[in-house]
């Protein structure tokens, strides 16, 4: 096993401050860094010794032999235990769960995000199928801590097996129900979950608390239960490894991967890369970023995707349609450069609003505001190709005009979709409406 790297910045807030030094012995569950301001504790996920403490990471050399036991956190109130365990939002955002659950919902809603919207990822759904007991326990803890009156699981109806498991589990739960979602992207965006389950569209700057709710990822819920029941620090992550791997493109779901392990290690565990590849993406196809094999897994890493090679545009002029739902402009340019395209025009979806921190948020995720004008711009600027990073609905709109203008359309996720045999994001063929379960059960 190679050295493990624990990034000091792996969630929202300032980088953590290390509390170990080179040469220190650490055990599984040893606290190695504490937040400076907003943040969460970071724990070692293995037995070993600290190799070095760098500016942005702590490097730990693992022992040959690893035991299952870990150093437990202190007993305390449930909220204190969640905080001490360093639980953060595991869906990718990485907001400290202890802070999030500290809100008094006064009878409001815990919205359990089991949408797993990024195509190719399966670990959230697998968790429901395999570990509903602990998951449900976590939901109840969250309700109790935040004084919520109800909890709603948001899950796509296509996950029939998981939905069945859930229905059984909540059948006798008076205050817990299920809301089914269509299989379009994005449905798992925080405000999309609020809109779909509670019927309230929030402004990009508003938090779910504006709708008396907390949106919490289904894995985060599990980590909350583990912190309280097992006094387990948050040092492991459920993940999906998928793509151009030896043995095929079926997803490999790994539960409790130690945080700090390298992408390369995980890929090897899944069989290793099969020949020539395009990118290694950490995260999902839409919002993930290309990384190298030595990048370490953090508390928010959900997927590792090895893609096939990208097509070659031989320097053709390209228009980029940047959107809050897909990669940011830098990521779109990255994809375009890898395709040897020449960016001649950049447009941003009308609904993509820039937040104070520079990220984009969609005003109404998954509902298109029209893209014909953007296509006209691309055409005018001399583009031959369009690379879009849009949601299902907007991609459909782009397809309604771009091809008729002789613009050839690529989606930022095409190479991933081709790798995992998922339909490309082009025309929308499914309805945005799904029939709900009777009384959410």
């Amino acid at each position, binding site marked *: 096993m190679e050295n493990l790297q624990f990034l000091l910045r792996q969630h929202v807030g300032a980088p953590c401050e290390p509390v170990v030094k080179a040469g220190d012995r650490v055990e599984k569950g040893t606290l190695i860094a504490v937040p400076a301001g907003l943040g969460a504790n970071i724990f070692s996920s293995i037995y070993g010794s600290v190799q070095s403490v760098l500016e942005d990471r702590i490097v730990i050399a693992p022992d040959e032999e690893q035991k299952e036991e870990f150093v437990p956190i202190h007993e305390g109130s449930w909220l204190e235990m969640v905080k001490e365990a360093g639980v953060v939002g595991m869906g990718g955002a990485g907001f400290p769960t202890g802070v999030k659950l500290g809100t008094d919902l006064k009878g409001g809603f815990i919205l359990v995000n089991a949408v797993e919207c990024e195509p190719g990822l399966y670990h959230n759904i697998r968790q429901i199928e395999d570990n509903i007991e602990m998951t449900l326990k976590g939901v109840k803890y969250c309700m109790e801590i935040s004084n919520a009156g109800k909890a709603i699981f948001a899950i796509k109806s296509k996950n029939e097996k998981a939905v069945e498991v859930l229905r059984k589990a909540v059948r006798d739960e008076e205050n817990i129900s299920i809301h089914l979602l269509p299989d379009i992207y994005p449905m798992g965006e925080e405000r999309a979950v609020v809109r779909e389950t509670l019927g309230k569209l929030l402004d990009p700057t508003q938090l779910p608390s504006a709708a008396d709710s907390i949106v919490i990822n289904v894995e985060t819920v599990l980590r909350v239960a583990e912190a309280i029941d097992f006094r387990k620090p948050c040092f492991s992550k459920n993940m999906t490894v998928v793509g151009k791997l030896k043995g095929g493109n079926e997803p490999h779901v790994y539960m409790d991967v130690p945080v700090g392990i390298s992408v390369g290690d995980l890929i090897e565990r899944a069989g290793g890369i099969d020949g020539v590849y395009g990118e290694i993406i950490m995260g999902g196809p839409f919002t993930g970023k290309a990384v190298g094999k030595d990048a370490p897994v953090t508390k928010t890493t959900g997927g590792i995707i090895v893609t096939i090679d990208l097509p070659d545009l031989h320097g053709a002029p390209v228009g980029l349609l940047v959107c809050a739902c897909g990669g940011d402009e830098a990521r779109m340019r990255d994809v375009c450069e890898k395709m040897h395209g020449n960016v001649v025009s950049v447009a941003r979806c*009308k609904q993509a609003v820039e937040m104070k921190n520079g990220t984009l948020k969609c005003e109404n995720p998954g*509902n*298109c*505001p*029209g*893209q*014909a*004008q*953007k296509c*006209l711009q691309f*055409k005018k600027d001399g583009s031959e190709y369009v690379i879009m990073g849009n949601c299902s*609905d*907007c991609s*459909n*709109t782009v397809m*309604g*005009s771009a091809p*008729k*203008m002789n613009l050839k359309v690529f989606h930022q996720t095409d190479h991933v979709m081709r790798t995992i045999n998922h339909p490309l994001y082009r025309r*929308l063929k499914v*309805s*945005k*409406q799904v029939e709900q379960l009777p009384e959410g059960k």
Partner: protein
Amino acid sequence: MSITAETAKEHANDPAVLCCRAEEGITIQASNLEDPAIFDDLVDSGLLDLEGALTIEQVLGATLTKTCDSLCPLTADVVEGAKAAAAPEKAAEEAAEPAPAVPAAPQAAVGPGQVLRIHIGEGKDIDIELPVGLANISAPTPAGVPGVIPALAADTEVQETNEEKIVRTLTRKHYKITEVKRGPETKIEGTTLYIREGIEKECVDSQELVFDLKIDIITPEDYHTYSETIMDVQPIACKEGEDEVGSGTTRVLDGVIMMVTGTDANGVQIGEFGSSEGYLDENIMWNRPGAPDKGEIFIKTQVTIKEGTNMERPGPLAAHTATDHITQEIREALKELENDSLVVDTETFDQVRRPGKKKVVIVKEIMGQGAMHDNLILPVEPVGVLGAKPNVDLGNVPVCVSPLEVLDGCIHALTCIGPASKEMSRHYWREPLVLEALHDPEVDLCGVIFVGSPQINSEKFYVSKRVGMMVEMMDVDGAFVTTEGFGNNHIDFASHHEQIGMRGIPVVGMSFCAVQGALVVGNKYMTNMVDNNKSESGIENEVLACNTLCHEDAIRALAMLKNAMAGEEVKTAERKWNPNVKGTNVELISNVTGKPIELAKNEQSLPMSQKRKEKYD
């Protein structure tokens, strides 16, 4: 892109088209609809067929009966509960209802904004009589606010000052020249102008960067002579006695002009975007305000400047200064003439102010990017060099001049992009918009602002903001913004419109645009535009002065500004350049004024040059 409820209201009668896929059963809202502003583009691209589409007003609130994709026009067969298209009748009914309590008094004509608007679409022999105190009719006064406005005393004052006032006068004495010869000294004898032999050497010696200077006397018989690119055409004129440019008396030679041409030592034309080298008779658009008139004699210098300096500021300036050495000697000779018997014609220009009339200002954007894009402002002699300040050195900031200063050669133009659209020195001498506005009894031309067009965008906005402030202080009712050339300078041209327009002042823009010079930027104030194009295909055809501001453009701009000041909206431009728009407008104006307007000829009236044949026509 989807529209807001307000936009939907503005476009209530435009076709309703889905901006995105919408599913069966939804209630149609503004956010489901595409912006009608892009329909023309969409129809052009073959993306949209509006056949049978209901209007936006009709479909709002109705139910979609079938899942439809983006850019699908909403027709009756996919919409349930659409409103009937009977809006106008309904409005009429409402208006016919008696308005209880509120008296239908004159207030109805005077809105809360205190504007009396009289719109006459078409008419003849219309007399409108209004009571003198009309301006003081107040709208229904909100309780507690005294609505009386300073009354009759003000009216009498206005009456008194409403008379025309002559601010200053400029006299032009014309001296006829029929022959230009070389001789031992520079002098004017009768109608013959002699230029001193050997003056060329002094011209060359006076400028470090000038390697050579040749003088050619081009008579009409020699028009089919090859020439290097024409840098400038200048009147030969001088002030009488102590008179200054813009007032007093100016003496000018008729029948002869100065023409500056040149290359660098490597033979590269001193021009940036195209150049007019070639046979003179094929490359000059005769009788344009800035160009030579057919029949005139040219004193043409062919200046050779140091290699590589053609694209730097000092090079072209040296060519102009060297040429001016000759002009200055002619001016001296002209000044010495004591006998008015040689004066063949005397013109008087009055700078008239017309208080009470709509006050307008002309903002002329002149090139100031550096290299040859420079203009010397206010020389001592008309179109001279001495005493003038290059606008580049002035930071291109706006400079106010009187209309008479413009007509008296206060601009010595070095500008060079491109031959067909640049305004040469002679252009200002005969500037049609200044002349038209000055002579129009319906407007009060308060002055002319020259503003340079700097190279860098930040500087463009810097000078443009100064223009805005200056125009604001003038309290004008309307403004013209003109520019020469096209492309880079359109950025500040647009910004001038914005700066003036945002102050609530109607503004009319004039530029060569057509096909090749289509505006690269725009803003919501650029609604009133006059295209100076004359070329057949709407291009910069490298024929000298072809697409510059002419009389026909000036009258269109004046008519447009008058309409704009009266609150009339100018129709949205057609999507593609259509020369017929100009034709129609000229005809309309001519019908109203009763004066026929003869359109200037274009390059098609000239012999076809090899260059034009190969590159353009």
